[in-house]
C-alpha cells in the first residue's frame, strides 16, 4: 500500500516535469537595453532586446533612478516608442544628469534583470531627418542656371530659442553614378548647385545633426530631371573660343612646319653682325691690308712696331663718326667696342665711368682702339692659346690678374674683356690682337696699331697698376717700349733703355699730347730733358701735328706722318717676328719682366687717370 502511494507520487511528479519540459517553459532570458535616443533634447526613448521568453508570456518593466536621487521610478510610457521600448516625456527628461535604468523580464517561471545602463541625455541626441525636401531647376534669364534645393527642419525641434542647433548636409548624384556629391550646408535650409550635367536625372537627399550629437538618417530621395539646355552660355562661348584658338594654333604650327626656316628667319631675323663702313671681311682674310685699310679710309697705315714700342701713354683714338667699330670678340656686340677718345684726360667720352680713357685706371679698362684696329671676328677666333677664352669678361672688374681688353659685347663697360687670370692670358689677348693685326696687315707686320699696342700696354700697365710698384715697373716698360725708328723729327717718346726688341735706335722722345678727332696724334717733343738726345733738327716746334700713321713697315714698324709736313715718320720697331703667337707672348713677358720701377714722379695723376710722362724715363736711360 505504501509502496503504491510513493510510486504514484513519483510518477505524477515525473509526468508533471515531463509536461513542463516538453512545453519549453523557462524563466525569461536576460533582456538588454541596447539603444536610447533623444531627437530634440526634450524627450528620449530607450529600446531593449528581450532575452529568450521561456515559452511563456513575459512582462517587461523598466525601472530607473537618476543621479542625485534615490527614488526608483518606473518607465512612464511603454507605448509611444513601440514594443520593448520606454519613452520619457518632457517632464521626465533632464539634461546633464545620468539615468540609471534596467529592464526586468518576468514570466510564470521566473524573472530576470538586465544590466544597469547609465544614460545621459546630453550624449544620445540624434534628430530625425529633415522634411519637405524640394528640388527645382532654376534658369534665370541673365544669370547662370542652377539647382535650387530647399528643406525644412524636422518637427519637434526647438530652434527658435536656441535650445537646439541644427546643421545640415545634402548629397546628390546622377541616377546611375556610383559616388555621391556631398555638400555641407551649415545652419541654412536651402542650397544652390551650379555644376550639373545636363540631360541627367539626379537624386537629392538631405540630413541633419545637432551641434553636438549624431547625424540623422538621410531623407528619402527626391528625383529631378536636368533639362538638356542646362549648360551656360558662358561655357558654350568658352568652348568655342578654345576650339577656335586650337585651330588657329594648329594652322600656325602647320605653316611654320611647311615654311620652316624661312619663316623663323622672318619672325626672328638674325642679329646683324657688326659692320664697319667700307670694311670688307674678305680683304681682311686675304691679308691685303692696304686695300682693306684704304677702303676704310686710312692712308698708309704703317705697321706698328712691337707693342712695347708703342706709346707710353694710353691712347684713345676716338672716331666719333664711325660707330661701327667692332669688338674683337664678338660679332654680336658691334658698336660698343673701341671708341677712340681724346687722350685728354679731362675729356670724358661721356660714356660713363667705364669709359674712362685710361688703361691705367684701376676700375675699368677700356682701351678704346682707334678705328684702325679692325678685327675680323673670324680671325679673332683663331688664337692658338688654349688659355684664351673668348668669353671675355665684359664687366668692369678690378684688374687683379686680369687685363681688360676689349669689352666683349654689350656690357655696360667698354672694357677690354678680361681673360681668366693667368699670366698668359694677357699675352694671349695680345696675341689675339696682334694676330688679327698681322693677318690684316700681312707679313708686313701686324698692324699692331697704336691702340692695339696701346691696348696691350694698357693691359700691362693696368696690370702693373694693380700691383703698385710692379705697376710702375710695367709702366716703365711700357714707356720704354716705344721705339722710334725714326731718325727724323718725329719725337716719339721712347724711353728705350733696354728694350728687348732688337734694334734700338737713338730716338727722339716725344710726349703725346693728345689725339685729336681725326686720329692725329698731337705730340710734344721733349726738348727740355732730352737735351742729350739726338734730335731732329726739324722739330723745334712744340706741337706738331702728326696726322696719321702712314703705314706699317717691316712688320710692326709704324710709320707716322705728320699732316702739314708729311715727312716725319716715326717708325716703331718691333722685335723680329717669328711666329706671332708665341713671340707675342714672349715679348710681352719680356716686356713685363724688364720694367724697372717707374719713378713716382713720372706718374701724373690726371683726373684719375695715370699718365706717365715719358720724359721721365729718359732719365733712367741716360
Amino acid at each position, binding site marked *: 500500500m505504501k509502496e503504491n502511494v510513493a510510486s504514484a507520487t513519483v510518477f505524477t511528479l515525473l509526468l508533471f516535469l515531463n509536461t513542463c519540459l516538453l512545453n519549453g517553459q523557462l524563466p525569461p532570458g536576460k533582456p538588454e537595453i541596447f539603444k536610447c535616443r533623444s531627437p530634440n*533634447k*526634450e524627450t528620449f526613448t530607450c529600446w531593449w532586446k528581450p532575452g529568450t521568453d521561456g515559452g511563456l508570456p513575459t512582462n517587461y518593466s523598466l525601472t530607473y533612478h537618476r*543621479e*542625485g536621487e534615490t527614488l526608483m521610478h518606473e518607465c512612464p510610457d511603454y507605448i509611444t516608442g513601440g514594443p520593448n521600448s520606454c519613452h520619457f516625456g*518632457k517632464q521626465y*527628461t*533632464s*539634461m*546633464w*544628469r*545620468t539615468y*540609471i535604468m534596467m529592464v526586468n523580464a518576468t514570466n510564470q517561471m521566473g524573472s530576470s534583470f538586465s544590466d*544597469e545602463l*547609465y544614460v*545621459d541625455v*546630453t550624449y544620445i541626441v540624434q534628430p530625425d531627418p529633415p522634411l519637405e525636401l524640394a528640388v527645382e531647376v532654376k534658369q534665370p534669364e541673365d544669370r547662370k542656371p542652377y539647382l535650387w534645393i530647399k528643406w525644412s527642419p524636422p518637427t519637434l525641434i*526647438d*530652434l*527658435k*530659442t*536656441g*535650445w537646439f*542647433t541644427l546643421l545640415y548636409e545634402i548629397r546628390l548624384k546622377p541616377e546611375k553614378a556610383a559616388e555621391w556629391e556631398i555638400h555641407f550646408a551649415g545652419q541654412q535650409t536651402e542650397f544652390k548647385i551650379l555644376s550639373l550635367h545636363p540631360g541627367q536625372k539626379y537624386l537629392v537627399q538631405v540630413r541633419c545633426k545637432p*551641434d*553636438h550629437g549624431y547625424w540623422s538618417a538621410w531623407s528619402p530621395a527626391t528625383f529631378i530631371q536636368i533639362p538638356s539646355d542646362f549648360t551656360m552660355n558662358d561655357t558654350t562661348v568658352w568652348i568655342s573660343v578654345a576650339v577656335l584658338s586650337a585651330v588657329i594654333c594648329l594652322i600656325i604650327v602647320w605653316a611654320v612646319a611647311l615654311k620652316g626656316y624661312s619663316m623663323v628667319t622672318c619672325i626672328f631675323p638674325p642679329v646683324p653682325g657688326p659692320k664697319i663702313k667700307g670694311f670688307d671681311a674678305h680683304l681682311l682674310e686675304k691679308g691685303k691690308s692696304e686695300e682693306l685699310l684704304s677702303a676704310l679710309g686710312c692712308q698708309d697705315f704703317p705697321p706698328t712696331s712691337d707693342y712695347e714700342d708703342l706709346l707710353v701713354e694710353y691712347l684713345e683714338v676716338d672716331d666719333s663718326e664711325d660707330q661701327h667699330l667692332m669688338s674683337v670678340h664678338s660679332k654680336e656686340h658691334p658698336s660698343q667696342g673701341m671708341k677712340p677718345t681724346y687722350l685728354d684726360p679731362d675729356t670724358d667720352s661721356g660714356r660713363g665711368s667705364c669709359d674712362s680713357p685710361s688703361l691705367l685706371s684701376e676700375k675699368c679698362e677700356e682701351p678704346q682702339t682707334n678705328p684702325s684696329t679692325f678685327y675680323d671676328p673670324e680671325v679673332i677666333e683663331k688664337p692658338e692659346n688654349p688659355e684664351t677664352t673668348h668669353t671675355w669678361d665684359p664687366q668692369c672688374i678690378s684688374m687683379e690678374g686680369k687685363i681688360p681688353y676689349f669689352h666683349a659685347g654689350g656690357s655696360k663697360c667698354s672694357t677690354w674683356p678680361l681673360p681668366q687670370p693667368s699670366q698668359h692670358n694677357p699675352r694671349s689677348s695680345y696675341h689675339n690682337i696682334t694676330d688679327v693685326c698681322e693677318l690684316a696687315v700681312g707679313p708686313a707686320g701686324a698692324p699692331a696699331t697704336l691702340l692695339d699696342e696701346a691696348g696691350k700696354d694698357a693691359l700691362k700697365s693696368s696690370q702693373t697698376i694693380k700691383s703698385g710698384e710692379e705697376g710702375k715697373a710695367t709702366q716703365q716698360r711700357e714707356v720704354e717700349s716705344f721705339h722710334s725708328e725714326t731718325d727724323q723729327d718725329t719725337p716719339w717718346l721712347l724711353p728705350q733703355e733696354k728694350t728687348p726688341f732688337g734694334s734700338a735706335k737713338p730716338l727722339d722722345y716725344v710726349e703725346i699730347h693728345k689725339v685729336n678727332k681725326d686720329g692725329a696724334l698731337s705730340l710734344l717733343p721733349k726738348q727740355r730733358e732730352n737735351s742729350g738726345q739726338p734730335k731732329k733738327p726739324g722739330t723745334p716746334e712744340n706741337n706738331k701735328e702728326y696726322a696719321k700713321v702712314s703705314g706699317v713697315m717691316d712688320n710692326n714698324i709704324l710709320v707716322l706722318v705728320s699732316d702739314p709736313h708729311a715727312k716725319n715718320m716715326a717708325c716703331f720697331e718691333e722685335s723680329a717676328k717669328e711666329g706671332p703667337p708665341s713671340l707675342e707672348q714672349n715679348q710681352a713677358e719680356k716686356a713685363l719682366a724688364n720694367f724697372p720701377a717707374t719713378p713716382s714722379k713720372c706718374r701724373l695723376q690726371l683726373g684719375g687717370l695715370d699718365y706717365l710722362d715719358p720724359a721721365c724715363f729718359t732719365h733712367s736711360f741716360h
Partner: protein
Amino acid sequence: MNIKGSPWKGSLLLLLVSNLLLSHYIHNLSSEMFSEFDKRYTHGRGFITKAINSCHTSSLATPEDKEQAQQINQKDFLSLIVSILRSWNEPLYHLVTEVRGMQEAPEAILSKAVEIEEQTKRLLEGMELIVSQVHPETKENEIYPVWSGLSSLQMADEESRLSAYYNLLHCLRRDSHKIDNYLKLLKCRIIHNNNC
C-alpha cells in the same frame, strides 16, 4: 532686437557671439579628451558607476531643461555661467599640472587639457566683461563651487587615481556642454529675440 537704452551695444553682441564660439570649441575638445582617456585607460571597467554625483558643480542650481532655462532671467543666467567658469579655473590648472607630471604623459590628452585651460580663461574673461557692462551692479565676489579633487588625482592606488581622472574629465565634458548650450540660448534670446 535691442530696446533703446539697452546696454547691449554692437560690440557686446559681437563679444557674446565670440564667446559662444569659444564655448563650442571648448566642449568639442573636452569631449574628445574624455573619449581618448576612456578608450585608453578605463573602457568597459565600470568607472561610470563611480562618477555618479562626483561633479563639484552639482551644488549649483543650474537649469536642466528648456523650460527651466526659459524661466531664468538674463542676469542670473550670466552670473551662473560666470560661476561655473570660475569654478573650473583650479581643476583645469591641476589637471594640466598633474597630467604633465605623469610618466609617459599622454600627449594628446595633455595638449587638449592645456588648450582647454587657456580657452576657458579667455571665455571667463569675456563673460566677466559682458557682465560688467550689462550688469555692472553685480557683485564681484560671487560664490562659486570649490573643487577639492586634487588629492584624489595624486593617489597612489591606480584604480583610485584613474577614477579621479575619469570623474574630472566626465564632469568637464558635461559642464562645458552646459555652458555652450546656455550661451546659445542667450544668443537667441538677446540677439534674435527668441527667433533664431
